[in-house]
């Protein structure tokens, strides 16, 4: 694995650490303390501070800090921070006004039009300046912290803004997903032919899970597993992934390592969802035990694995690959049908057909699968095929 990739993984797990710190059962002070540690640990900074803007007094209060002189932090003028931009890290450099506190990077925290406070960092231990990626990550983190702090103050006000709280929480999850998406884009970019594959597999899997009646949290976990199922491919050579001629047995072995790699990568990340690492690990297993990497069968395969396996195969079949043309949608569905019980799960297939059929009939307000299918598809033919399968699979 390249250093860049390792760093990217470290950064993404830092986001998971942050989510964990914010949503933990700890009291507010402990949460803030953990949040600061996550940030200083991620940016290798010896000094860090989180300041909260108290509107009535128009003063910045230090929530927690390490390494700064308290008097220096008190000298910061909130008005000046507000003008710096929203949740955008600002490199202080020689700025005479802001240099007072001895910070190197200052990020003003905002939620919509409200100034919440500031995050200060300084004393980077390792050589080399902060990179663009570091600053982007800091921006994502700042957004999350701003929302968490705002939620807290809303809560303290005992305000009737519960609804707003809920919306802000949604926004926070959105940001988290944004980062995962960026990561999935990195996976898909490696292999020109699998463009957006992770994105589509995430969507398809979540749609199936929803139709199965999973709760929102579980659906989200399914979605994340879809995004990251092929993350192990980042560690496999581009030349091999984009090869046009058929793979040799050795090459096939090499490619097959990706699901185990996906597992070891995701296992290091402390996700708020259960089983993400299990799902990515076993997405190439088969019900008959002829899959890989562990040749698991039947009961050993969780519902999540079964969903991911079907969604992944369906997208693989309906996308062009370097070594073969893509299949039309009907043929892909027929192929799934043909491999029921040996490879794909009966119940999952039934549910998949139901969602797709509903989407085609316009019964779902936000279709997840249909928008990604070949535009030349004959929807009435597909729908008829799906109806047939649904009747057949619904028989006791």
């Amino acid at each position, binding site marked *: 694995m390249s250093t860049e990739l*390792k760093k990217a993984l*470290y950064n993404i797990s*830092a986001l998971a650490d942050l989510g964990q710190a914010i949503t933990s059962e700890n009291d507010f002070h402990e949460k803030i303390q953990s949040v600061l*540690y996550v940030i200083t*640990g991620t940016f290798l900074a010896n000094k860090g501070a989180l300041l909260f803007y108290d509107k009535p007094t128009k003063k910045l209060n230090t929530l927690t800090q390490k390494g700064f002189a308290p008097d220096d932090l008190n000298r910061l003028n909130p008005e000046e921070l507000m003008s710096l931009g929203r949740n955008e890290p600002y490199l202080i450099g020689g700025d005479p006004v802001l240099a007072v506190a001895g910070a190197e990077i200052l990020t003003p925290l905002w939620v919509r039009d409200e100034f919440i406070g500031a995050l200060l960092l300084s004393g980077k*231990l*390792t050589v080399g300046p902060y990179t663009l990626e570091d600053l982007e990550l800091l921006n994502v983190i700042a957004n999350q912290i701003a929302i968490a702090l705002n939620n807290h103050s809303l809560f303290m006000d005992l305000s009737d803004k519960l609804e707003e709280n809920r919306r802000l929480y949604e926004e926070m999850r959105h940001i988290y997903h944004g980062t995962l998406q960026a990561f999935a884009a990195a996976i898909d970019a490696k292999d020109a032919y699998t463009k957006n594959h992770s994105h589509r597999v995430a969507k398809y899997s979540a749609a199936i899970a929803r139709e199965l009646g999973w709760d929102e949290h579980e659906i989200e976990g399914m979605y994340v597993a879809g995004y990251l199922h092929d993350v192990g491919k980042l560690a496999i050579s581009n030349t091999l992934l984009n090869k046009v001629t058929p793979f040799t047995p050795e090459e096939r072995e090499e490619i097959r390592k990706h699901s185990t790699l996906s597992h070891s990568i995701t296992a290091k990340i*402390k*996700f708020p969802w259960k089983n993400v690492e299990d799902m990515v690990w076993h997405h190439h297993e088969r019900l008959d035990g002829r899959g890989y990497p562990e040749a698991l069968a039947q009961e050993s395969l969780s519902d999540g694995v079964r969903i991911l396996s079907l969604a992944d195969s369906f997208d693989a079949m309906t996308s062009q690959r370097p070594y073969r043309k893509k299949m039309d949608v009907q043929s892909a569905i027929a192929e799934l049908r043909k491999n029921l019980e040996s490879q794909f799960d009966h119940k999952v297939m039934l549910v998949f057909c139901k969602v797709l059929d509903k989407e085609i009939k316009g019964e779902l307000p936000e279709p997840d699968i249909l928008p990604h299918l070949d535009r030349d598809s004959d929807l009435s033919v597909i729908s008829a095929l799906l109806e047939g399968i649904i009747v057949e699979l619904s028989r006791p």
Partner: protein
Amino acid sequence: MKSVQFSVASRREGDAAIIYPKGYLNNLSGENLVIECGIYIGKGITKIVVNFSETDLINSIGISMLLQIIEDLKNIKGTICCTNMSKLLRDTFEMLGLMQHMLVFPVESDALTYLKTGKL
């Protein structure tokens, strides 16, 4: 993922202190590691060996704790030696550029020999 309750043990050998973190270094309880080192530093110890044989998982919070110890020792011109590190731990430290700020030895006894004699 289960998290293992984190604890710290330590002992003194000559003019060095050996610290044994145990469990995942991934939450606030990692502060105990900083506190434990701080106690020895307070007693005038400048050589600290951290034996990682029972810690194979570290996250950003743990890294932050380690930065603190590195900084505390730097301020008194002390030495930090890390030993018995898993590959994952070594890789993480290397990727973050922490290796330049510490001495790394395969096992504890190597570190102690080095601290005593100045050579390997």
